[in-house]
């Protein structure tokens, strides 16, 4: 009943969320979850709280290869505009 999946977590400026969702669409990924209004600090200094906040995007990939495919598709955006992309192993209930 439990099935291995890859959990992808992305943190980018809220301005870039449309670009990320476009990439998901291109890769035929229909399932994702977004948390807006996230603040944080990284190479580009502090974001959040005031004018430009971050968003957190989570994608559960049942297709294990998809996570890495996605990481390739996201590379240019991350290189250019910064942000976080991580992959974790998890298990999910296929319902």
């Amino acid at each position, binding site marked *: 009943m439990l099935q291995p999946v890859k959990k992808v977590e992305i943190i980018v*400026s809220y301005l870039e969320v449309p670009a990320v969702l476009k990439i998901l669409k291109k890769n035929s990924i229909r399932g994702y979850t977004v948390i807006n*209004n996230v603040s944080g600090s990284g190479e*580009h*200094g*502090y974001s959040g709280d005031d*004018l*430009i906040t971050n968003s957190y995007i989570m994608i559960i990939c049942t297709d294990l290869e998809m996570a890495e495919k996605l990481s390739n598709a996201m590379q240019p955006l991350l*290189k*250019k*505009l910064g942000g976080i992309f991580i992959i974790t192993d998890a298990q999910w209930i296929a319902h």
Partner: protein
Amino acid sequence: MDSNLILSNILNPPVLFFFLGMLAVFVRSDLEIPNPLPKLFSLYLLVAIGFKGGHELFESGLSPMIISTLLAAVFMASIVPVYSFFILRVKLDNYNAAAIAATYGSISAVTFITASSLLDKIEIPYGGHMVAALALMESPAIVVGLVLVRIFTPKALDISVDEKHDRDDTDNKHHKDEVDNKNNKDEADNQETSWGEVLREAFLNGSVLLLIGSLITGVLTGGDGWTKVHLFVEKDLFYGALMFFLLDMGLVAARRIQDLQKTGMFLISFAILMPLANALLGILLAKLVGMGEGNSLLFAVLCASASYIAVPAAMRMTVPEANPSLYVSMALAITFPFNIIVGIPLYLQTIKLLGV
């Protein structure tokens, strides 16, 4: 300078609330206006000035003077980023120079509103078309900034550039031309998308659209709409919302002040001297056009103010090589308080002296 004017400006509840916000940060109080409440105030203020301006435009109609004023507004918004860029290039790379130049070419609506609240207080009249001028001055600088980047670093706007500019927020090096601009196969493609995005971002961003939409609503619904909602968009409610928004701006500006350590004296001076120069130019232009005292002050304030919302958002996406903490901090932690506290009464004094 007329000390009454300074006092009148400072002893205004909204301006005092700006100080209160700054004070809260300095004494490390936990006072905060949690997200997205500040957004509520800023949406409201845009609607209110837009609608009020639209109504006044409906009452006054278009005159040659109004049209000259709007042309002067577009002229200043386009020319300020150009000369700012060349001044900034003396010390900065092209990316940061263009981003900061665009920031100072655009405007801050709250500075404008604070100036208009001083005019209300000391009962100097001004016209609703100044809101149209404000709306027209938000966007051109974004486009000019990008054109400058394109001209001086021809391959920069490529959205899939492979090498990341090694931004370094911790020290103060902003070397010129240190960015490696690799050509990329699908460059042309990306540049096109990029331009479309840029123009949309510039002319259809949320605040411009809401402001112009409210202005047109004010014009279209005429006296009737005004009777219905005027107490919503002016007087006590308007001042109250401005108080809260300036309280938040005080908090935000003060939090940014620590970033200034990394900015260096050149940029700190720029953030004070450039507004002064732009205001002076604006005042002279206003005299030329014959705008009258109130409108001249608002025009000077538009020229002197710098954007910390629309332009940073646009620059972050389109000139990612520039360092946002530079242009946001300069506009927010220096130029904004400077205009609110010192600039507005100073510009008005100058206008009175020059007999505009």
